[in-house]
C-alpha cells in the first residue's frame, strides 16, 4: 500500500520533470534560433533523472535507516522499569507484540496497558514518518528538478549526461550476474559453515556412511559421509556419458559429414527436441518405462537389475545429454578448417579416415571441453535421479543397484521431515556448495579448453 503510494508519486514526479525539461529545450530552440546541442527528449530525460535520483535517495535512506529508528522509537515507548526487567529475548518478544498491536494483528494473552499505548503511539509514529518521508522526497525531487531545469542552455550536453546514466544502468544490469554468483556463494557458504559447526568437514568429505539421523533424535546427528553420494553421482554420470558420448559424437559426425541435406534438416531439430524436454519428463519416462524395461531385459539374460537404479537414471540421463554432446561436437567439428579436410581428401584418404585421423584429432581438445560441459550437466541433474535412481545413499559399485546423488540428497534433506536448524537440513547447503565447486571447476576447465581450441583456429 505504502509502497504503491510512493511509487505512484515518484511516477508523477518523473512525468512532470520530463515535461518541464522537454518544453524548456523546445522553447530554447524556437525563441533564439540557436542550435541546441541535444534534442528535447534528452533534456526531458535529463531533468527527469535529476529529479528522480534525490527523491529515490530519500526513500532509500528511510528504507535503510527506518527500521533502526522505529526500533528505537518502540524501545523509548517501553517504561524504563519494564525495559530493565527484560532480557534480549524478552525485549524482542515485547517489540514483536507492540508491532503486532500496531499492525492490527492481535496478541496472545493479556495486553498490558503500556503495550497498548506503545502500539497506538507506534501506529501514529509510522503514519507521521510516512508523511515526512514522502514530503522530504517530494521537496528533494522538486528542488533537483528546478536546478536541473535551470541548467538547460543551448550548449548544455544533456545527451551525453543521459547516455552516461544509461551506461551506468547497463553496467548495473551486468552486475546482476556477479550478484547472483555472490548470492550463491554467500548463501551456500554461510549455511554450510553452520553445518560444519555440527559435523566436522573431515567427516563430511571423507565419510563413507550417509545416514543422517531423523529429526527426533536430538544430539545424535548421524553420519554425513559425502562419499556414497559422490560415488553415486560419478557412477550415474559415467553411465550417462557412456550412452551420450558415442551416440552424440557419432550422430554429430554423421549429420555433419555424411548425411544428406534433407536428412540433416529433419534429424537435427528432432534430436534437439530432446534438449528442450523438461527433465521431469525424462524422469517419468525412466521411472515408468525404461526402468521396468531394463529390469525385464536383465531378467532375460539373468542379470538382477533394479527398476530404479544407477543404470536406469544413467541411461536416461545419457539420452537427455545426447543433443548437448552432438550439437557442441557439431559446432566444434565445423570449426576445424575446411583446408585440413581438403588436405586429407587430396591425399586420397577416405571420408572415415579423414574424420578419424584428421578431424577428430584436430577437434579433440574442443570435444573434450564439450564433454566436460556435458559432465557438469550430468553431475547437476536432479529430477531424473530423484525419480529413477532409487535414492539409496550406500557406498557400492554395482550400477544395477539404486544409488543416491548429491542433488537428490539436497532435495531429500531440504524437503523431508527434517529439523530445520539441525544438520539434517543444513547439510543440503554443504552438498550444494560441494556441487557448486565441482561443477565450477569442471566448467572453468572446460571453458578454458574450448577457448584454447577456438583460438587455435582463429
Amino acid at each position, binding site marked *: 500500500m505504502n509502497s504503491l503510494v510512493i511509487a505512484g508519486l515518484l511516477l508523477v514526479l518523473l512525468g512532470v520533470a520530463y515535461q518541464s525539461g522537454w518544453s524548456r529545450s523546445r522553447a530554447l530552440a524556437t525563441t533564439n534560433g540557436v542550435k541546441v546541442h541535444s534534442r528535447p527528449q534528452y533534456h526531458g530525460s535529463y531533468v527527469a533523472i535529476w529529479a528522480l535520483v534525490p527523491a529515490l535517495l530519500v526513500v532509500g535512506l528511510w528504507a535503510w535507516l527506518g527500521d533502526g529508528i522505529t526500533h528505537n522509537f518502540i524501545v523509548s515507548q517501553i517504561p524504563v522499569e519494564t525495559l530493565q526487567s527484560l532480557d534480549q529475548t524478552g525485549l524482542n518478544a515485547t517489540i514483536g507484540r507492540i508491532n503486532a498491536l500496531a499492525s492490527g494483528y492481535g496478541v496472545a494473552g493479556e495486553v498490558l496497558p503500556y503495550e497498548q499505548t506503545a502500539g497506538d503511539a507506534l501506529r501514529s509514529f509510522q503514519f507521521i514518518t510516512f508523511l515526512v518521508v514522502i514530503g522530504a522526497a517530494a521537496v528533494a525531487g522538486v528542488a533537483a528538478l528546478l536546478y536541473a531545469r535551470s541548467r538547460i542552455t543551448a550548449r548544455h550536453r544533456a545527451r551525453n549526461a543521459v547516455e552516461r546514466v544509461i551506461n551506468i544502468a547497463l553496467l548495473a544490469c551486468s552486475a546482476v550476474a556477479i550478484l547472483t554468483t555472490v548470492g550463491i556463494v554467500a548463501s551456500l557458504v554461510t549455511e554450510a559453515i553452520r553445518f560444519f559447526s555440527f559435523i566436522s568437514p573431515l567427516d563430511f568429505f571423507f565419510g563413507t556412511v550417509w545416514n543422517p539421523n531423523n529429526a527426533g533424535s536430538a544430539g545424535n546427528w548421524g553420519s554425513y559421509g559425502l562419499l556414497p553420494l559422490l560415488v553415486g553421482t560419478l557412477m550415474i554420470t559415467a553411465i550417462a556419458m557412456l550412452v551420450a558420448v558415442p551416440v552424440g559424437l557419432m550422430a554429430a559426425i554423421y549429420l555433419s559429414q555424411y548425411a544428406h541435406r534433407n536428412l540433416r534438416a529433419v534429424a537435427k531439430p528432432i534430436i534437439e527436441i530432446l534438449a528442450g524436454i523438461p527433465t521431469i519428463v525424462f524422469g517419468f519416462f525412466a521411472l515408468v518405462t525404461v526402468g521396468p524395461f531394463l529390469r525385464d531385459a536383465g531378467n532375460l539374460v539373468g542379470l538382477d537389475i533394479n527398476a530404479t537404479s544407477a543404470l536406469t537414471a544413467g541411461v536416461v540421463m545419457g539420452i537427455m545429454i545426447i543433443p548437448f554432446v552432438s550439437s557442441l561436437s557439431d559446432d566444434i567439428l565445423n570449426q576445424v578448417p575446411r583446408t585440413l579436410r581438403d588436405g586429407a581428401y587430396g*591425399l*586420397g*584418404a577416405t571420408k572415415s579416415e579423414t574424420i578419424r585421423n584428421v578431424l577428430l584429432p584436430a577437434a579433440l581438445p574442443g570435444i573434450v571441453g564439450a564433454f566436460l560441459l556435458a559432465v557438469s550437466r550430468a553431475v547437476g541433474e536432479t529430477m531424473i535421479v530423484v525419480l529413477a535412481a532409487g535414492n539409496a545413499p550406500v557406498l557400492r559399485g554395482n550400477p544395477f543397484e539404486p544409488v543416491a546423488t548429491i542433488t537428490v540428497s539436497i532435495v531429500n534433506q531440504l524437503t523431508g521431515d527434517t529439523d530445520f536448524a539441525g544438520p539434517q537440513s543444513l547439510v543440503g547447503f554443504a552438498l550444494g556448495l560441494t556441487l557448486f565447486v565441482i561443477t565450477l571447476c569442471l566448467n572453468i576447465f572446460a571453458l578454458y579448453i574450448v577457448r584454447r581450441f577456438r583460438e587455435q583456429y582463429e
Partner: protein
Amino acid sequence: MTQQSVNSAMNPTDALERPIRLTARDVTVHYGAKQALHGISIDIPDRAVTSFIGPSGCGKSTFLRCINRMNDTIEGAKVGGTIKLDGEDIYDPSLDVVELRARIGMVFQKPNPFPKSIYDNVAYGPKIHGLAKSKTDMDEIVVSSLRKAGLFEEVKDRLNEPGTGLSGGQQQRLCIARAIAVGPEVILMDEPCSALDPIATAIIEELIDELRENYTIVIVTHSMQQAARVSQRTAFFHLGNLIEEGVTEDIFTNPVNKQTQDYIMGRIG
C-alpha cells in the same frame, strides 16, 4: 630471383611435343543453381607445368578441383563433361576416387599441414594407402619425399615436432612433400604461393621447376608474373570460360583474344 627460374624453363615448344596426360572435354560445373564453368576443354601435357590464370571467381580453382574430383566433397557441386587421365575417364563410376586422388595429388592455397608431427604428416598418405611394408620403408619414403620437396635439411632434426610449428613457406613445402610421398603422377596446386612472402615464393617456384621433371603439374595463380616464370603452358579463364590456352610465351606476348589482352594489360580484373 625470377631471372634464374625463367631461364631454367624449357623451351616452350618442348611442352607442346610432350604426350598429353589429361584431357578435359566440355567440363561444366554447377554449384547448386549457379553455373561456375561453362564447358571447358583442354589438354594437359605430361611433365610440364600448366598454369591457369584469370580474374578472381573465374573458375580456375573449380576446374582444378574437377581434376582430382575434389568437387565431390562439396555439397551441391555437379560436374558434367569428361576428364580423362591417360585415356581413362576419371568420372567413371567404377573408378575408385580414393585411388584417383593417390594418383593426382593436390597442394592448396593455404599451407594446411595436419596437426601432427612432420614425420606423420608425410607418412600419412603412404600409411593409409599401405605403401610402406615396414618402418624402414616408411622412413625411406618420408626422407626421400622431404628431400624432393627441398625441406629435409631444414627439418631433419625435428621430424617429431608438429608440422604446424614450421614457417609458412616450410609448411607449404611440407604439404608438397606430403603429396609427393604417395607417388602421384599429377600434382595440382591452387595458388600455392599466395600466402607466402617473396622469398618463400621463390623457393617454391624453384621447387616446382625441379618437380616438373618427374610430375605433371597444374598450377593456379593470380600472378601473371608467376605464370610466366614457372609454366610452359598457360590457360586463361574468364567468367567460367576457358578463353585462350597455349604456350606461355605466346599467351603473354601475343594473345589472340581481346579479353586475354585486356587482362594481361591490366584492364580487367
